[in-house]
């Protein structure tokens, strides 16, 4: 089930809805936020510790690790093997034919007896 967001009541609604079932408002279709193939799947990636483009009206998502990383910087999140080409959740979809369906479903493991991931500058390389 693909969920967009109602522009009026801000609830998530099925992208197939003609109008928000909760208030009758307009449902904004979702962007597909994908992780690029070859990216090491880490909690930081799943939990949004990646790019979040400016200018999106419908989400308060901010880059978790500070300022957005320029697209051509070559920087990657902690633990990733390659660049993460995430797009803002409610922006334009990526053209990414190779995305893993399993990763699409994923919305991040956050075991309640666990801890938030460390900041990207913690600990350096593995011993």
């Amino acid at each position, binding site marked *: *089930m693909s*969920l967009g*967001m109602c522009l*009026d*009541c*801000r*609830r*998530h609604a099925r992208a197939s809805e003609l109008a928000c*079932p909760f*208030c*009758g*408002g307009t449902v904004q279709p*979702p*962007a597909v*936020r*994908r*992780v690029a193939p070859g990216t*090491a*799947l*880490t*909690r930081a*990636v*799943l*939990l*949004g510790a990646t790019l*979040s483009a400016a200018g999106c009206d*419908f*989400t*308060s*998502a*901010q880059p*978790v690790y*500070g300022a957005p990383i320029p697209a051509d910087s070559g920087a990657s999140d*902690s*633990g990733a093997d390659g660049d993460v080409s*995430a797009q803002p*959740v*409610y922006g334009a979809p990526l053209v990414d034919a190779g995305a893993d369906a*399993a*990763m*699409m*479903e*994923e*919305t*991040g*493991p*956050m*075991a*309640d*007896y*666990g*801890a*938030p*991931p*460390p*900041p990207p500058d*913690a*600990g350096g390389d*593995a*011993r």
Partner: protein
Amino acid sequence: MTNPLGPRPKSLPIAPKAAPAKRSLPLADEVRDVDRQWRPIYAVWEITLACDLACRHCGSRAGKARPDELTTEQCFDLVDQMKDLGVKEITLIGGEAYLRDDWTDIVKRIRSLGMICTMTSGGRGLDLERCKAAKEAGLQSVSISIDGLEANHDAQRGVDGSFRAALEAMDHLRAVGIPFSANTQVNKINMHEIPATFDLLCEKGIHAWQVQLTTAMGRAGDETGLLLEPYQVLDAIPMIAALKEVGDARKVRLWPGNNVGYFGPYEHTLRGGWAGGHRGSCSAGRRTLGIEADGSIKGCPSLPTKDYVGGNIRDNSLKDIWERSAPLRFTRNQSLDTLHGFCRTCYYAEECKGGCNWTSHVLLGKAGDQPYCHHRASELLREGVRERIQKKTAAPGEPFDYAIFEVIREPWPEGEIAAARAKAMLDPLP
């Protein structure tokens, strides 16, 4: 000062001895494609059940070490197996992880294999020496548990002075260069001071704040007057969402726990930056792995031992347990048919699949119907009703046990319903 929790329940021991690990559990003969598809990227590992606090809400009734905790070599082997299975990050917990003499050796092993290593701690004994050893070993962050301001925290932790000790632990971590975060439970007795608590934590310099609702497992289920009523998520979730925005402005990341949610008008604030833009379904046995100190393997560290241990690392490989044990497979097998009650016909059933299985199972005795849900509470509010909980059966008094509650529906009081509707944003925004 009067203890906000009142006297501790006397009917059960504070720190019972855990039963020996369940051994030689059955595994399926075949590995299915879906079992190969999922690999844990995040493990939470209770390396000992020994603890130096006596938290009134402790789900694992921690205090005494388990009778058969893994040896150092067995721990090293388990680390190696987690690496082979694809784990990227491990959080060490207890009890209190630093009460194991070899805890920094375990940290070193994890880091030597390139995995991220963090720890969750009550902080009582996290002195400068321990922090230096942790830094040397490569520990990358510590989440300190803070349950309110001083009096409230000490009451919930069961030890006077524990609040000050926890804040001192943060100072020690800062001194040695280990970043620290905090984790806070939200319940009836501390909800009013959560914003002030968060403010204090931001001032201390946390890099992140994990927040979840106190869940009815272990000692938490013994306490009367601690657990939120399900309808109180209509107050708790907007508060947490507001604090998310405060945190964003202060560069402190808020991580909503698995029982914080779901959907409703605040989901995009809480999780809009996540890969799916909103919460999905439980990741136990798909992306998360839980380990008990005796080598018992679960899909999530929070899940009750009795129902969700799939095997023991002394009997089978981690890979075999992960792929072939029924308890580790349960979310891979989850469908709408495993839901019941409100969740079965919920608008978000396909996506959510009953929310946090831990929260619902330890409350009602089985997963699949989660009353602590903002969407659910607000939809019931449209009908003029709300849900509260009532205990039916007490817990037996073992680590990771649970009482049985029932959910009672009742009319919203007339004097409160209008304000509740406004806060739930049941009417379209102007």
